[in-house]
């Protein structure tokens, strides 16, 4: 396989975008066909490059000018995250009709996100990720400037922080290439910067942020693509963090803190979900919830936790496509989607969460308590899911962008994929662990049938296949029950949530008190600064002279 093949996954969407733009300017909208070619082309390119060799392929083309070489590679991590990004984007670009400029921007965003996970070094990842973020903001704002979108400053802050982390590694260790950074360079404070940027990039916070907010937009065309391309990138950084530290984070405190954060995020999402006034609001919390579970699993620092987290993220990425295509009216599609989202057995979400929670117990050192908290969170999700089935649908989306049958198929696929969890682990997640946790990845065994953990074995195929058949049979013979659609009260209110919201609102609307306004009179300051007052200039000069003599 020639090294240049690594460019395929990101170049194909770029070429498609260019062709669409040219035709678009000529007044011809190539539409969904071209978009599908670009999107699925990227997926195909990833498969073609990775599957035959299943080992790292790298292309280095010399320095770019900011201390980094043009170094792109496809390895297990790139493959896993690339599919996570490209598949939902491809589904949405194929099905949802868009104006050609929006398709072009979405294509460019996809290419940038893929470049971010293909980049061999941190600075290059920061530049590509920052590009993806910029394009996402452009895409969302042009679709509907009044609808909610991620804070551009927050996204930029995340990518800038990552760039700074990269240059710190370059200065300290001579390189910021993932697999070449000296382990000793990645100190605790430095890793805190990486973790902070990762959290900012994916906005993994306990409060309601863009991964949940975007689903309340009037149209979900831009929202789906944005969440699909941006949300996994923060987790990608945390996974690469293991590679930088030779299979572990610099201090176990990072594992505990990040796992704790993940659980808190998942619980906060669950708490909001069980109080959601509409089904759409509930579904909006699904991705942050799964992200929280995934973060908790990935941060454990064990190969088992890592693979569980990756499978959860992959499930979330499929759900993104599913949610963007799902209409808001009640029906079997909504029902099955909710069941798949909350992890009804024998779905893949169920199996992955079970493995993730088992991993917390086996990680030792009180991390089992995080597993207990994870179980409590999952229970809250179950409650929220059961409640959401009978909630009003919420604001409807244009029917032209919803595809109930496709979303139903995706949801059924997720429910039926549970028995394949071991196979998915072997083919999809294990290579990631082998890449970033080379020393301990050998503990992952079990083959295509079982997921073997230290203390037990999950008989994925042998237990879940009969369960799947039994489930299909029992639901097939069950009679119909009328689900009463009604506004349902929240089971509980998060203590302090209301006061926190009030505080946030107060901060937002904070103004300088009347009696102090004159001190902050911008016009007055502007006149003073731009007026060319001789005394001011002389004063500045004297002050500077005084300063340099200190």
């Amino acid at each position: 396989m020639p090294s240049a093949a690594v460019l395929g996954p990101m170049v194909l969407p770029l070429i498609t975008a260019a062709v669409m733009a040219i035709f678009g300017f000529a007044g011809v909208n190539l539409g969904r066909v071209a978009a599908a070619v670009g999107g699925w082309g990227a997926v195909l390119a990833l498969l073609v490059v990775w599957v035959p060799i299943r080992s790292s392929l790298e292309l280095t083309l010399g320095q770019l000018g900011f201390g980094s070489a043009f170094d792109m590679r496809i390895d297990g991590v790139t493959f896993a995250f690339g599919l996570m990004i490209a598949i939902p984007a491809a589904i949405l670009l194929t099905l949802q009709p868009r104006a050609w400029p929006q398709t072009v921007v979405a294509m460019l965003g996809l290419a940038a996100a893929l470049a971010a996970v293909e980049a061999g070094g941190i600075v290059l990842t920061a530049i590509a990720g920052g590009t993806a973020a910029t394009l996402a903001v452009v895409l969302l704002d042009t679709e509907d400037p009044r609808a909610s979108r991620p804070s551009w400053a927050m996204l930029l802050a995340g990518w800038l922080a990552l760039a700074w982390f990269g240059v710190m590694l370059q200065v300290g260790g001579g390189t910021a290439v993932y697999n070449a950074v000296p382990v000793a360079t990645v100190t605790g404070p430095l890793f805190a910067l990486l973790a902070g940027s990762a959290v900012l990039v994916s906005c993994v916070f306990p409060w309601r942020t863009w991964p949940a907010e975007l689903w309340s937009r009037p149209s979900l065309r831009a929202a789906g693509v944005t969440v699909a391309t941006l949300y996994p990138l923060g987790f990608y950084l945390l996974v690469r963090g293991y590679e930088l530290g030779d299979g572990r984070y610099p201090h176990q405190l990072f594992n505990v803190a990040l796992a704790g954060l993940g659980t808190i995020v998942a619980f906060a999402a669950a708490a909001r979900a069980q109080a959601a006034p509409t089904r759409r609001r509930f579904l909006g919390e699904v991705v942050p919830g799964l992200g929280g579970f995934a973060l908790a699993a990935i941060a454990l620092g064990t190969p088992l936790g890592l693979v569980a987290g990756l499978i959860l993220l992959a499930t979330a990425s499929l759900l993104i496509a599913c949610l963007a295509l799902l209409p808001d009216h009640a029906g079997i599609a909504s029902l099955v989607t909710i069941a798949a989202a909350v992890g009804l057995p024998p779905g893949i979400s169920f199996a992955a969460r079970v493995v993730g929670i088992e991993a917390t117990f086996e990680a030792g050192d009180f991390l089992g308590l995080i597993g207990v908290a994870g179980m409590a969170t999952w229970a809250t999700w179950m409650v929220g899911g059961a409640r959401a089935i009978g909630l009003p649908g919420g604001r409807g989306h244009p029917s032209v962008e919803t595809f109930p049958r496709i979303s139903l198929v995706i949801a059924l696929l997720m429910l039926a994929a549970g028995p394949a969890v071991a196979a998915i682990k072997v083919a999809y997640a294990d290579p990631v662990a082998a890449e970033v946790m080379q020393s301990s990845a050998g503990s992952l065994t079990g083959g295509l049938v079982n997921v073997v953990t230290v203390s037990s074995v999950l008989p994925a195929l042998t237990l879940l296949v009969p369960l799947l058949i039994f489930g299909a049979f029992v639901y097939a013979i069950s009679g119909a029950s009328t689900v009463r659609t009604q506004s349902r009260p929240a089971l509980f209110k998060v203590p302090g949530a209301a006061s926190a919201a009030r505080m946030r609102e107060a901060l937002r609307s904070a103004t300088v008190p009347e009696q102090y306004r004159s001190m902050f009179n911008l016009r007055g300051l502007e006149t003073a600064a731009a007026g060319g007052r001789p005394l001011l200039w002389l004063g500045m000069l004297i002050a500077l002279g005084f300063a340099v003599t200190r």
Partner: protein
Amino acid sequence: MLPESIELLAFAAASLVFALAFAPALAPRRALAVQGGAGLAGTAAVAAAPAFDLAVLGLMLLAVLQAAVGGKRTFAACLKAPGVAVALLALAALFARAEGPDLLQRFAAVGLAAGLAAAVGLLPYLHTFDPEEPIAASPVAWLAYIGPVVAAVIVADAHGLLTADAGAAFGAVLIGFGLVNMAWGSVGAWLTENTGAAWRYSFAADWGLALSGFGITLADGRRAALLVLFTVVLGRLPLYLVSGRSGKAPVTDRPINLLVAAALAGSAPFAGFAARVLLLRGATQLFWPLALVLALGMLLWLPGSLRLGRSLGIPRRRQAVGVALVLAANVAAGLYPLPLLAAAGL
């Protein structure tokens, strides 16, 4: 002549060509060509001057020539800041050359830094500004056309004039000016009432980055400064030229406006982001808390940039082509800045 100055002159020439080809004809193109050409020649003279005193004399001549161009401000008002700049630079040269205590060298460093700020028109020595003034006669010409070369020359000569200790003081003062201009410029671009003034402050904010780059006495700092000046001369200035800078153009929210905002804000993949990466790199090598302050300051660009990007309106025909060219050039320089840096010998 410094390779850096030659490159900056080439940027200025390119921006002049852009103005003639794509800018809306607010002034007769012939007059613009003559004035721009004269300015370019004068700037080239400053850059080519073999001695610091000759460069300062060239700067004075340039200032008088620009003041002679018809505009809204009085002749005396136009010469106020440049006159002070020339005086400060001359005094700094005197202090640097005289024998005596080390303190004299430090005063020389202050004079050079303050002279640079006054010549370009940065805080605390902002030139008086009238948004309605033609570009050739306005302070923007100093900020984005003449200023970059003048700054490169002054910084290069300063290192010849000053001792190592005073050179460090010079760098520190430049960084101080840089941080002040970053903060004031970006907040001003966001909150000031007049769109034209907002553009002027946004130039000052970019100059804040450039001064910080010059102040970081390392190769990465110089590289960052060069890239920032590229974004000023071949990014912000052309966009300013095609914008409704008086704020009369309707505010629009098209993709092009947001892309322009991203370019002005220094988001990836535009050249501003690469410049910021290099600046952080340099600051980290020098003193990492400075990098933290710079990184926080870099977040202030967004609100003002969104405002300016939206003030661009919807460019039509020639303007649209011009904007596309500027964005493409900035993306190219952002992704692959090496040729620019290599050409400048950095």
